[in-house]
């Protein structure tokens, strides 16, 4: 059995290294790693096909798929561009107001919808607004990525790590609003004020032509109001159901997929085109990781790990949570936070099985994975999106700029989150 644990660990660690170094596409690693794990399990008799299927968390996949379908329906309607143009008009061309408005719009939308899609659609309009104003778009793009990543931590559906944690720990939509939202709100405001300070020189430049922004007409970019209205009504219904899903004993995945079903029946889009907007690579990557982690569990790796961590009980629980925030944040800054979260979940579950009080640790994991991504350009997909887009402009966002403006935001958000975490620690559900 020792051999099984060692070989299974090697498969998982090699996969992680390949994902982290981006030597091979992560979805390919996910499929190949999962196949290897099942093969090894069958050979040594510790893992079977049915166990592998059972290891896949369909609650996570269903929730992600359902929300992806809603976004795919909303994407072509021009709704996102409408919001960005609206923010531009309301700001009347004042840079600070524009930063706050665009940051807020991006954050609020990405609290409920995929923030990568949100940023992909809002960033080009941001560049447009900045160019007609005659100011550099870099501060605004950076703020959109950083603020939407930060804000996404507030809800169960805000970012993929939360979906994973919520599913594994049985945390409901309301749990996130009670225990994550207030902390995220303070952290988000910290990030906003820090960005305002870091970019004080850029934001002090008076735009050369503020009137041009007022001639942008949001209504003209909103191409398909009818479809957008239907998606938003269904989305609103889904959010209401998320609130009560815990009491009705229905899973968030069921809510999301039902909403997707209702929206599809109501709108009846070109299915082939709609499905092209679904990020299948993400779903497959998740499934592969689940199968691999299931193999680790079956091979007894986590049991051994928890036995190693038995002395962890000697560490004060608050300190343990703080360590998780910073270790996970540090890792999330340099690599994808999804595999980190998926790998951390069984460890925390193991600690729970060993008698540790793990309730507060889930929140530490969510904060670390969420805020850590702000540290570098590769820390989150939204960061990569704005950096890549800005390369097509005359003021590209470089790693150097990110180190000066993004890294301080990550450190500040993690520090604020740590302080709040310590303060509210006794209130976390056990």
């Amino acid at each position: 059995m020792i051999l099984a644990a060692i070989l299974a660990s090697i498969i998982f660690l090699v996969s992680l290294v390949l994902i982290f170094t981006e030597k091979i596409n992560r979805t390919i690693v996910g499929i190949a790693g999962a196949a290897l794990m099942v093969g090894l399990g069958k050979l040594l008799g510790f893992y079977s096909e049915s166990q592998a299927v059972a290891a896949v968390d369909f609650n996570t996949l269903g929730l992600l798929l359902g929300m992806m379908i809603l976004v795919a329906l909303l994407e072509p309607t021009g709704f996102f561009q409408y919001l960005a143009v609206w923010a531009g008009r309301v700001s009347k061309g004042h840079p600070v107001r524009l930063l706050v408005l665009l940051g807020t719009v991006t954050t609020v939308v990405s609290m409920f919808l995929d923030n990568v899609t949100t940023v992909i659609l809002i960033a080009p309009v941001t560049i447009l607004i900045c160019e007609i104003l005659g100011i550099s778009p870099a501060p605004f793009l950076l703020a959109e990525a950083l603020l939407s990543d930060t804000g996404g931590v507030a809800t169960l559906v805000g970012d993929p790590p939360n979906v994973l944690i919520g599913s594994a720990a049985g945390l409901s939509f309301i749990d996130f609003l009670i225990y994550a939202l207030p902390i995220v709100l303070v952290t988000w405001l910290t990030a906003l004020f820090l960005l305002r300070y870091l970019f004080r020189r850029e934001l002090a430049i008076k735009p050369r032509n503020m009137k041009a922004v007022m001639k942008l007409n949001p209504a003209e970019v909103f191409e398909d109001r009818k479809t957008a209205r239907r998606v938003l009504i269904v989305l609103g219904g889904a959010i209401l159901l998320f609130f009560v899903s815990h009491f009705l004993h229905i899973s968030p995945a069921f809510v999301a997929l039902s909403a997707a079903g209702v929206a599809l029946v109501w709108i009846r889009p070109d299915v082939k085109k709609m499905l092209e907007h679904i990020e299948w690579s993400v779903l497959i990557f998740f499934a592969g990781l689940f199968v691999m982690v299931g193999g680790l569990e079956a091979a007894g790796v986590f049991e051994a790990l928890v036995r190693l961590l038995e002395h962890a009980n000697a560490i004060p629980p608050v300190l343990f949570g703080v360590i998780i925030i910073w270790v996970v944040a540090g890792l999330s800054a340099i690599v994808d936070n999804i595999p980190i979260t998926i790998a951390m979940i069984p460890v925390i579950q193991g600690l729970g099985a060993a008698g540790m009080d793990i309730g507060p640790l889930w929140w530490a994991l969510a904060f670390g994975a969420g805020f850590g991504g702000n540290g570098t350009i590769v820390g989150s997909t939204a960061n990569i999106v704005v950096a890549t887009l800005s390369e097509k402009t005359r003021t590209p966002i470089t790693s150097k700029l990110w180190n000066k403006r993004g890294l301080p935001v990550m450190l500040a958000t993690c520090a604020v989150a740590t302080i709040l975490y310590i303060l509210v620690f006794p209130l976390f559900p056990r």
Partner: protein
Amino acid sequence: MHIHDCMKSHVFFIPSTASISEAAAVFVKRHVGLLPVIDDQGKPIGVLRLADLLSLELPDFVNLIADVEFVHDFGAVETTRPEPELLARPVTSLMKPVMTVEEDSGLLRAYALMLQHDLMDMPVVNAKGELVGIVSRVDIGTAVLSIWPTERKSP
């Protein structure tokens, strides 16, 4: 009929040593859409299009947003000029690879090349590869039409 018979042999060009702003002055003075860039042996080594120069001034969002119709006022963009340092750079940094046609080429071959490579004008070279003229789609097209058989009058 060959390209030689329909090309414009009075051709404007710029030397490869010219700067972008010098090239811009030639465009303004000659009112043309394309200038061949030639080396010191008179051979074309690239072309500079009016559009290449304008791309220096065009805002970035035009390439990011599919339909800019809703942008009724380009605001600061309309008064933003390229940096002087940018305009001091040599034309070789902005020129595109040249596609030439030999002066003894047939008309339809030249026209097909322009069609497939999406060119409106093409520099013409002699057997030694030296620039001897320039030909447009209109030059070739009208030359082809001019030799179409005339309608026979019914008796």
